[in-house]
């Protein structure tokens, strides 16, 4: 279809100021084995097109899964009709980019493709992992899954830009629950944080059978552990919780469409205002956050966003000071700000909006061991299992799967149900140490929800562990 589409593009071009065609083909394969039984395998093949028209001060889109010539023409007509209707009613009249992308491309680097092993081989591997998860009788529930997603985008517009991107990512998930006196504790392999743009070899090289054994033992230990204490503690946050902290209390509040009010009815607004950029001290001087679409193998690494804007690395926060928002080309026009290439849509059937790409904590200079050794009375928190923050991104409360008490520079006993709460900028001002490059983990989340109509999208977060002073920690019932 794609070549046919390109060859016939002139047939479809309407007489308008600007028009773009964004063709998306998505393939998803999820294989899950739960309690040693293969669940129904999910295979999804999705294909469709979004036509966007900007004309005479109006903007509209038409999206269709009907990729016949008639279907594409109908979608184009729909886009034109909405552009005509929205004329004089738009909150902002978009001006399309003038920079042209000539034959741009991006492909995820996969050493081994997903299809290198058969479904049967993958099921066998998951069965082995299940055996390792169910290592003890007190494990009450267990399971493992592999998810593979491939998203191919073909973009072309009336300015002459055209590019093709093929992003594929893999997400392994492992879970073990243990029961002790009717108290159930769950431990996972980083929740859903281990999603990467990487080949199938990643799954074979990740030693998942050993990880399965470790999390099963953790679940058993947690089920018998005391509740986390309620007190203020110096807190070391591991990368698989740091990604959530960055995501919720830096990524979302810096999204320019929130600041401009688009999300006030659904995903929420932000305490950040336009006048803060370039001067506001968001956190301590140790805090350095980048929008980095160039990090190798990270989930949202790409060359172009869905408005056809070339992507490169930019600092959002440098030495604690707010530099720029996560604002797309069109949002930046509205707000007179610098843009980053962050206009992204979940698929062909949703319009692009301002999104996190890879939002990363730049590494510092402290090793993980040095960080633990520096703590007299504290706690290490690992793996997010609960997240909640207000609609202006101030008051947050997050929960983790595992807490480990730190006393006089050493890791001690495990505690269950560790939670912490705080207010965003106070929290980031308490950032005291940032882990070094050796402790830096490339992680991400495949399910970030936002937008009206609603969209979920994959975003990357790479970060080392960090130490925060005086955090309000508490446990369960």
């Amino acid at each position: 279809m794609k070549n046919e589409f390109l060859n016939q593009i002139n047939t479809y071009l309407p007489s308008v100021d600007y028009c773009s065609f964004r063709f998306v083909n998505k393939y998803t394969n999820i294989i899950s084995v739960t309690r040693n039984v293969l669940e129904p395998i999910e295979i999804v093949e999705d294909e469709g097109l979004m036509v966007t028209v900007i004309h005479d001060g109006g903007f509209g889109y038409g999206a269709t899964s009907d990729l016949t010539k008639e279907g594409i023409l109908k979608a184009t007509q729909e886009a034109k009709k909405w552009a005509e209707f929205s004329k004089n009613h738009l909150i902002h009249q978009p001006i399309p980019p003038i920079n042209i992308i000539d034959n741009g491309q991006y492909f995820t680097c996969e050493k081994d493709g997903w299809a290198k092993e058969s479904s049967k081989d993958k099921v066998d591997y998951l069965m082995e992992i299940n055996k390792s998860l169910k290592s003890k009788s007190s494990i009450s529930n267990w399971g493992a899954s592999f998810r593979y997603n491939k998203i191919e985008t073909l973009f072309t517009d009336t300015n002459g830009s055209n590019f093709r991107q093929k992003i594929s990512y893999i997400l392994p998930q492992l879970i073990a629950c243990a029961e002790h006196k009717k108290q159930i504790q769950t431990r996972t392999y980083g929740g859903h944080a281990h999603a990467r743009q990487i080949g199938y070899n990643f799954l074979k090289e990740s030693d998942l059978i050993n990880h399965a054994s470790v999390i099963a033992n953790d679940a058993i230990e947690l089920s018998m552990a005391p509740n986390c204490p309620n007190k203020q503690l110096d807190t070391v946050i591991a990368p698989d919780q740091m990604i959530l902290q960055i995501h919720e209390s830096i990524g979302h509040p810096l999204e320019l469409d929130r600041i401009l009010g688009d999300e006030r009815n659904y995903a929420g607004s932000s305490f950040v205002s336009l006048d803060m950029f370039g001067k506001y001290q968001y956190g301590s001087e140790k805090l350095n956050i980048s929008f980095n679409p160039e990090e190798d193998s990270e989930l949202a690494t790409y060359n172009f966003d869905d408005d056809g804007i070339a992507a490169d690395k930019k600092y959002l926060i440098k030495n604690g000071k707010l530099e720029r928002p996560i604002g797309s080309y069109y949002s930046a026009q509205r707000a007179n700000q610098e843009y980053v290439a962050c206009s992204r849509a979940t698929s062909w059937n949703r319009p692009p909006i301002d999104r996190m790409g890879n939002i990363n904590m730049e590494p510092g200079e402290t090793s993980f061991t040095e960080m633990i050794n520096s703590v007299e009375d504290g706690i290490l928190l690992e793996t997010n299992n609960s997240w909640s923050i207000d609609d202006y991104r101030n008051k947050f409360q997050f929960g983790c799967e595992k807490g480990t008490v730190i006393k006089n520079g050493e890791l001690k006993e495990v505690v269950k149900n560790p939670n912490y709460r705080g207010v965003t900028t106070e929290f980031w001002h308490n950032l005291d140490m940032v882990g070094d490059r050796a402790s830096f983990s490339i992680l991400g989340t495949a399910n970030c929800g936002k937008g009206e109509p609603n969209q979920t999208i994959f975003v990357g977060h790479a970060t080392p562990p960090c130490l925060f002073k005086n955090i309000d920690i508490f446990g369960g019932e």
Partner: protein
Amino acid sequence: MKDYFHSISQELFKNIKSNELLIVNFDAEDSCFVRLNKGKIRQAGSVKQISMTLSLSNKDKKNLKSYVRLNGSFDRDIYTLIKTLNYLRRELPDLPKDPYMMFSRSINSTEISEEQNTIDDKEILSYIMSSAVELDLVGIYSSGYIYTGLANSLGQTNWHSNYSFSFDYSIYNKNNNAIKLNYSSKEWNNDEYDLILEKGIEKLAILSVPQKTIDTGEYTVYLEPSALNEIIDMMSWGGFSYKSNKIGTSPLHLLNKKEKSLHRYVSIDENIKDGISANFNSDGFIKPDVINMISEGKFADTLVSPRSSLEYSVKHNASSMSEYPCSVDMRAGDIKNDQILNTVNNGIYISNLWYLNFSDRNNGRMTGLTRFGCFMIENGTLTAPINTMRFDDSVYSMLGNNLIGLTSKRELLIDSGTYEERSTSSARLPGAIINNFKMTL
């Protein structure tokens, strides 16, 4: 669309061999989405999508399914579907048997089709924008047909199509305080829309007085139905699922094990009859009209999928594989709407809660925040808006000993969610007055 579904599924069944069973699930929508900010259009467009999921099983109890996006063009779609069918057929022999595979083998064909609707989206949007000229209005208008179909090679056919619109929006004042509103139905009526908006504007006026900052601590609160819905929604994260209760990950597993109880005022059903979801599941089983999940504070029935029924040797009730309710119906109480403020007397009026999650799932404890239209109640009167507050409390406390009562009037809340496709979930709930509601940040 119904004819297309019938013709394409029948053509597919001609290709099925005698030792095979094929189930097809069909989903389509023809939707308009218009996003507004500050009373003006932010994004406007249409989405037309059709998909079909093929689930092929054989006599060896092996099965494999594939979701395929369709064009709506018969020849092209049949070509794609037969290619997919052949792929499933090739893959099946290598897969292990599925011991929990269960499909409906009795023929239960049903059909619910709605008449052609003549609603004019652009006319409605013009009306909305003209009503919002002096308002800071933000939200989304969505409308159109949603089609759901099922057919199997044994001869069963089910069809459900309905038209609906949802205008989910908020109105803001210059202090950034807001009231959340929703108008969802099948037929647009300007008078009904005006009435909802006028009530919202009246509430917004109360938000214009200076905000009161409240401290952490325990308060008597009134939760509007939409706020209570957030708590019920959290309970639904595995709470009513047979499997989750069996393995202990349900937030209500202690209620299920009779270790804990809720207030006798609390009775909750899955009411398919009065909801807007299809009455059949993806395996072809017909759902009962009503399943009583909580009865007077005690756990009654769980939602049991056909897979769980085989895994645990219990009878299923045609629940979806997720065992998540889609038409929650909570019994009303006896507090009249004009008694709410006096019953609370001094406390907090909460229109909406937001971003809930568990702080101790095992014990049904959850956290979340106040959002939109939340007020101080002093001496039975709404006096001022409050700052955003975080609560952290257990369901056994909020809907247990601390539940003062439920309102006699209920609201039907149609889910305005549009992830992947427009939702058909709904909830009919009263409001709730709760004592000692714990605010923690």
